[in-house]
């Protein structure tokens, strides 16, 4: 188990032949995303991402822990993603499948290893206490392109999340509650996102944001992690048939364009949410500035 039911030969041929005529099943262009909706929950760092029919919920949480001995100045950041039978009946509860390992690895590389979240800013007291940030990804509906959807969710969550304020007084760490002091935003160094391409016909046809059926019909996938400034922080092609090197070069510019587009959607949703919160939040009351 832990594998989706394979496509029938006729269905695969239908998808392939349609693609050869530049037609996708849902009528999209080859480099067009499905409609993306990012919304935020009541608490900080609660994000719901809906990408076509793929949907997931990301929850960011923070707690104070002891840093690793070899890195006393660094806080901790973990991405936890467990695929349950909720997302797809093909996934078994409590058992790690190939997809889970693969997606977790890519997310780790794109978000964590590219230092999107500045872990040094999470240090409270050297070698004694630091913040541990945890991003939980709950996949609620799986219809392809899990990597990009999860990446969008995590990045939006990190930008939305506010942790409690902590200060050190006489060697003692004091953590103030959310209603005692204005919570602090996380230090985001850059906003990388992944864009997944799927290739068909020996790399001659390349599409982005494949649905589950298109994923199953494809020969290989190429993941490019890139930020708004155009810095490529991750490129991978794990398995499948060979892909021409020029695809990577060509598609990097497409990826950049898409990342800018997605980041704009995230920013818009964030602004809307923050302005809604500002009306009844504490940030407004505790502002030193006066309306003149």
């Amino acid at each position, binding site marked *: *188990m832990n594998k989706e039911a394979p496509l029938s030969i006729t269905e695969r041929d239908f998808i392939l032949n349609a693609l050869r005529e530049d037609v996708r099943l849902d009528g999209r262009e080859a480099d067009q995303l499905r409609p993306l909706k990012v919304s935020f*929950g*009541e*608490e900080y760092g*609660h994000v719901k991402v809906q990408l076509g*029919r793929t*949907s997931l*919920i990301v*929850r*960011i*949480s923070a707690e104070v822990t002891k840093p690793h001995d070899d890195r006393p100045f660094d806080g901790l950041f973990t991405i*936890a993603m*467990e695929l*349950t*039978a*909720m*997302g*797809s*009946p093909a996934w078994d*509860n*409590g058992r790690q499948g190939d997809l889970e390992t693969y997606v977790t690895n890519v997310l780790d590389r794109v978000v964590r290893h590219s230092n999107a979240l500045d872990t040094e800013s999470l240090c409270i007291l050297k070698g004694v206490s630091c913040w541990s940030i*945890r991003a*939980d990804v*709950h996949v*609620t*509906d*799986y*219809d392809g392109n899990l990597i990009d959807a999860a990446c969008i969710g995590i990045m939006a969550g990190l930008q939305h999340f506010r942790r409690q304020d902590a200060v050190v007084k006489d060697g003692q760490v004091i953590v103030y509650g959310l209603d005692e002091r204005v919570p602090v935003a996380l230090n985001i160094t850059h906003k990388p996102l992944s864009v997944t391409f799927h290739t068909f016909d020996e790399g001659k046809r390349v599409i982005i944001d494949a649905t589950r059926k298109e994923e199953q019909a494809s020969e290989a996938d190429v993941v490019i992690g890139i930020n708004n400034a155009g810095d490529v922080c991750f490129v991978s092609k794990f398995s499948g048939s060979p892909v021409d090197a020029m695809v990577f070069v060509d598609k990097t510019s497409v990826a950049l364009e898409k990342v800018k587009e997605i980041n704009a959607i995230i920013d818009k949703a964030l602004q809307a949410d923050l302005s809604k919160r500002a009306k009844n939040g504490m940030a407004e009351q505790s502002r030193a500035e006066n309306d003149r």
Partner: protein
Amino acid sequence: MVGPAATLTPLARADGSASYQCPSTGSNILGSVNAPVELPGRRDALKPEEATVEVFVKPGTAPAGVGERYVEGIIKGVLGRLILGRERGYPRRGVVVTLATVGGDSVGRGDSYLTLLPALLHTALLALLSASVPLSMTFSATVLAVSDSGEIIREPSTEQAAAAKSLHVLAFSSKGHLLLNESQGAFDFETWEKVHQRALAICHGTSAIGSDGDVAMVEDVDGQPLEGTIRETIEDQVHRDYAWKIDAV
């Protein structure tokens, strides 16, 4: 008191699903049911004439631990009695129930899971109904805390539950029979009787006890009985699902 808010079938891929928001604890539970499914490689573990019920509880912001395994056992016990696992197509198959806390506070490490248990049970029931799994009955559940002064608090917050002398989760079948009784802490029989009465009033209203003046007041405090809320949610859903048929008549 505001009743819980529930939505049936919010998910596309699972066979049945439900989203449940508990107003007092603020927790938002998403549940999904896949049934009947093939269970690979565990043939020996299951009874040949019945369906196997699998429950998986996923906390919102922490890795799953002992607390989840414990509460999975309780839920499995209740659902096992509910599901008609001998119906056509169900023997030797699995009923996979997945429950995730997608909003509100998660249960902290080592804290009691009883405060979240009724919400989990209700979500599981609604998801089963949404998946059209054959059931012998429906139920409603509630959690009550007894404070040091002997006061009974309905659906306590995390702080109230931590300060309480004892915690009780009771579930009643649609006919008013006691289905589940999980208690924690020190209490005597007299307290439990009171808790039982109050829980029955919450789940079924006072009509089940008889119209005593004193108890009628309790009903005002508790508002609409939970059984009714569950029923209404389902009725609404069925009404929407069969709109084509109703309109045709």
